[in-house]
């Protein structure tokens, strides 16, 4: 084995080293920075402090945080409400070309969301397509103000993130054993009962994955807020960017970023619990 062992060592060594240097170390540095004091000249002063976390409770900062959370929650709820029925219809609607429909969701999943946000802007702007069309058919006399509002940011986030909800939910619906639904129906359950007692619990991990993939980016995608929301509408992502690049307050920016990491950790915990609970039940 000695002369073939080098391959194994190389494969394992490379990936372990890469993840250590470019994932573990940078995140530990951010964690460390979040406990440091601010320093004008050197960015950070190596003095331990909890100040950066306490500053979240500063009313101005807290208000931005809370508003960004609200926008992200609305976005996630919209993605789930629109995406779940869509995924359900595609997975269980008896389509002849199911794969092709899926491809139509996969394409926007991989497409630049900056480009897609810009495309949305063409429709939403004051002299854009929606206003022109509504004006031409006489529904409005003056253009609607759609750009630079919170609603535009929510629409933009939903537009960008919808495929990220649909795909994991679709995958869990696809795995769903149709015989369970039949059995429930044979035992006299109505369609509503079947849906809430069987389909929903069994697709919960897919939903949690979808929620994670929409909620976290919805907090962070600062360019969508910049393009569609103007300067007023700040997301947590805008806060972090501004701390790092404009106000040069790296400790506060690091603490804010750590807050996102913590939210992610909490969601991952919920996900692994729901997936485990499901596999336990399936074993019974």
């Amino acid at each position: 084995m000695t002369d073939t062992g080098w391959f194994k060592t190389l494969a394992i060594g490379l990936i372990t080293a890469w993840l250590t240097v470019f994932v573990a170390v940078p995140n530990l540095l951010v964690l460390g920075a979040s406990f440091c004091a601010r320093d004008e000249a050197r960015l950070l002063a190596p003095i331990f402090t909890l100040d950066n976390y306490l500053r979240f409770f500063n009313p101005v900062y807290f208000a931005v945080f809370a508003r960004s959370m609200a926008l992200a929650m609305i976005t996630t709820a919209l993605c789930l409400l629109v995406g779940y029925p869509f995924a359900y219809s595609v997975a269980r609607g008896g389509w002849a070309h199911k794969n092709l429909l899926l491809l139509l969701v996969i394409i926007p999943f991989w497409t630049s969301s900056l480009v897609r946000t810009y495309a949305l802007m063409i429709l939403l702007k004051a002299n854009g397509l929606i206003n022109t069309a509504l004006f031409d058919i006489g529904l409005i006399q003056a253009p609607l103000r759609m750009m630079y509002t919170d609603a535009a940011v929510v629409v933009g986030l939903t537009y960008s993130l919808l495929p990220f909800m649909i795909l994991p939910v679709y995958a869990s619906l696809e795995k769903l054993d149709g015989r369970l639904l039949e059995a429930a129906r044979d035992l006299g359950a109505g369609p509503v009962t079947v849906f809430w007692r069987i389909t929903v619990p069994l697709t919960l991990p897919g939903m949690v994955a979808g929620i994670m993939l929409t909620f976290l980016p919805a907090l962070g995608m600062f360019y969508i807020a910049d393009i569609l929301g103007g300067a007023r509408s700040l997301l947590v992502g805008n806060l972090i960017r501004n701390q790092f690049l404009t106000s040069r307050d790296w400790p506060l920016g690091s603490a804010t970023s750590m807050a996102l990491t913590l939210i992610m950790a909490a969601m991952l915990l919920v996900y692994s619990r729901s997936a485990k609970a499901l596999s336990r039940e399936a074993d019974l």
Partner: protein
Amino acid sequence: MTRRWVGRAYVAAVLLFLYTPILVLVVYSFNASRFSTDWTGFTLAWYGRLAANQALLEAAGNSLIVALIAATLATVLGTLAAMAIHRYRFRGRGLVKGGLYVLTVSPDIVMGISFLVLFVAVGMPLGFTTLVLGHVTFCLPFATITVLARLKGFDAHLVEAAQDLGADEPTIFRKILLPLVRPAVLAGWLLSFTLSIDDVMVSFFITGPGFDILPLRIYSMVRLGVRPEVNALCAILLALTFTMVLVAWLVTRERTQK
């Protein structure tokens, strides 16, 4: 019967929502009018203007080079990682696997600033090298998972048979595993390339003033408003992504039909 049609109409409506803005953008990129929303005639003038924009061409060239290198490195590394995770039991295997999955859900902004902090901490000037390193890292999990999914799907006896016949690890890799995963490796490369060339969030933090790339150039143009040149540029990027994803889809679909 009606329920079925409601379902179909709903699917069509959501797809219309996803595609209308993109189609409108592409149509407008050929519209002769500069300011009006009305269609005033077909033109290729906006595409011509792009070709004359030196700064833009340079940014596009930079983006292509970064994407080519990052996608290739991520695919090589991801393929080796997938082999290691699939074939070997080693200390830290769970951590490596878990870390890769966590990376796929990790918010881009968190990744972007963590790279910024790292590169500043080690005193590395921001630019080409830092971009490549960052892009490899966020492409890596997608390349690995694509290959890993393919490895899980085939018969383990093939490898055992080869071992019984005296094949060593590099031979097994080259003669058995690599040919089997080739479509997945290609798909992983295409998806990594797409991710790299479209990235805004991570690149925003880790490129320097001397090294401009296409998505950041588009970002600063978009902030100034809707312009026909931007429509043309975005249409080109859309065509590129569509082609890449379509090819990736076709090569990975082949295996399910076999």
